[in-house]
């Protein structure tokens, strides 16, 4: 009983903080940072399915993110479709990428897959910065905001709460999937795929599924990003962005939904708090991440878990 009580508190307290934060910090710049944090949380939750749970290295997340952004940007500016509907468009785009990237992943493993996904990310970046209909390196301007009737979410505060709703829904879905039959199958493939095959379970389908989930989450986050920025250029979607997503997941706690959320929050907000260190910030941060990888492979979330609990989880 007390365990369940604790669990509810673990969800409620962060949620309360998330709701209160933009009211406490009224600075518009910081509200923008909070919105970016929410967007990154969605991407990292998606990445967690494929890299965290299934153990397949995906270094092309920036490409997925870009496809989502450009789907929304092109549909809403060129065809005048409502931004709400473009999210459906970007979910479909996620499905296409997921199946398209997922099937190759059946043939290649480990580093080969990491290289394939790097190739995918780079191809997407080069194409969107050269195609005419994506307006090349100039990017796309004037992406309309979400509206309900006459109410428009162009105010940062309103947009923050709208995106928070997205994060809560996608977070709950991610948590449910992680602790479902699918989630356990993903983890089993990561830990020992030969054993999974040996007991007669098809490993092809869950891999494609994990890829598709990752692509859908990435694309939806890309859409939200495009609507938030109102103006997107290809220079954002670099290999460095893909690695930043991986770092967020690693730092927070690979394979764990609360860990991913924590990682995205820390990696987005900490730079702003450490502005005073100036030039030294990135090098300090990189060394810290490296130390976490070497000595705490399960991320900072593993500091929060008590020893007793981790033993119990092991038995489960």
């Amino acid at each position, binding site marked *: 009983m007390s365990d369940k009580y604790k669990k509810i508190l673990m969800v409620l307290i962060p949620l309360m903080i998330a709701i209160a934060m933009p009211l406490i910090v009224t600075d518009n710049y910081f509200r923008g940072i909070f919105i970016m944090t929410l967007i990154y949380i969605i991407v990292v939750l998606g990445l967690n399915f494929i890299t965290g749970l299934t153990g397949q290295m995906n270094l092309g997340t920036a490409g997925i993110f870009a496809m989502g952004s450009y789907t929304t940007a092109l549909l809403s500016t060129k065809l005048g479709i409502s931004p709400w509907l473009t999210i459906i468009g970007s979910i479909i785009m996620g499905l296409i990428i997921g199946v398209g990237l997922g099937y190759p992943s059946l043939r290649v493993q480990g580093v*080969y897959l990491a290289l394939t996904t790097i190739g995918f990310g780079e*191809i997407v970046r080069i194409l969107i910065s050269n195609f005419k209909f994506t307006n090349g390196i100039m990017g796309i301007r004037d992406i309309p905001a979400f509206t309900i009737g006459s109410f428009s979410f162009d105010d940062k505060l309103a947009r923050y709460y709208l995106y928070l709703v997205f994060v809560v829904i996608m977070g709950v879905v991610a948590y449910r999937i992680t602790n479902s039959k699918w989630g356990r199958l993903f983890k089993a493939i990561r830990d020992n795929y030969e054993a999974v095959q040996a007991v007669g379970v098809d490993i092809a389908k869950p891999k494609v599924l994990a890829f598709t989930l990752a692509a859908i989450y990435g694309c939806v986050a890309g859409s939200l990003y495009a609507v938030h920025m109102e103006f997107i250029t290809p220079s954002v979607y670099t290999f460095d962005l893909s*690695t930043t997503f*991986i770092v967020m997941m690693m730092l927070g706690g690979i394979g764990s939904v609360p860990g991913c959320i924590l990682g995205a929050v820390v990696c987005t907000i900490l730079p702003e708090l450490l502005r005073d260190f100036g030039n030294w910030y990135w090098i300090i941060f*990189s*060394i810290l991440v490296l130390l976490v990888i*070497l000595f705490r492979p399960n991320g900072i979330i593993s500091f929060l878990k008590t020893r007793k609990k981790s033993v119990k989880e092991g038995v489960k």
Partner: protein
Amino acid sequence: MAQTVLQLIIGGLAMGFIYALVSIEYTIIWNASGLLNFSHERLILLGAYLFGAQFVVRNGISNPIAVVLMLICTFFIGVLISYVLMRPLRNLPLVFSVTGTIMLGRIITEGVRLIWGNNPIPLVGWLEGTIKAGELVINRTYIIIIIVAAVLVAALQIFLNKTKVGTAMRCVSQNKKAAAFMGIDVDRSSAITMGISAVICGIIGILIIPLFQLKGDMTGMIGIKGFAAGVVGGFGYIPGGIVGGILIGVLESLSTLVVPGIYKDIVSFILLIVFLLVRPSGILGHKA
């Protein structure tokens, strides 16, 4: 027309040799420790800055001595990285080791930025100039790259096959346990491998200074294209990397005849994905 093609082929060959060197440099680490070094681009950057920004511009040392000093420094940096980072990473799953080397790359980039600043550093007269052969005008840098790379490849083959240290390195890459039983110090051998790899990175760094200038993003996509070269030729197999690198360099250069130059960079990635899907063992068909 024939002249343009010939010039493109020479330029492509030079870039191809650079990709070939990149693929050799990470392949020896991959063979020795099963790690893919994603920080190699930054090691190339570090080598170029150590030579150009530190020794030549700041200390005013003459070019040949600066090259030697840079090679010694990069070797020991490589050995240090091997003991501090690669050894613990070797025992972690792939996701961690890849991220670990990526973070190492970021640390090096930031270090370079903090020490030598953001602005491009001009390095006048280093490997620059043109060579005229009849009607043909060739960039002198290309010729030097091709010669240095060819010598380096040959020297490495001799080192790996004829010397005791080289034989030990090959033994470790084939079977770590057996190597340890035969009395080979696996850690030390891996450290030497990493050191040699860092030295090759440094040489690549100084070779590309005339092509891309001495600046923070000088390495561009060389690192990733080097991975593509390895896959096209045969991953984890040194001759494969050389063949793949030259092929990618020449095809990339010739592609500007058919498609606009801006799509040049895409050639290597398409080759990478096609080969991974259709023929993962590469052109030479070597089983890794």
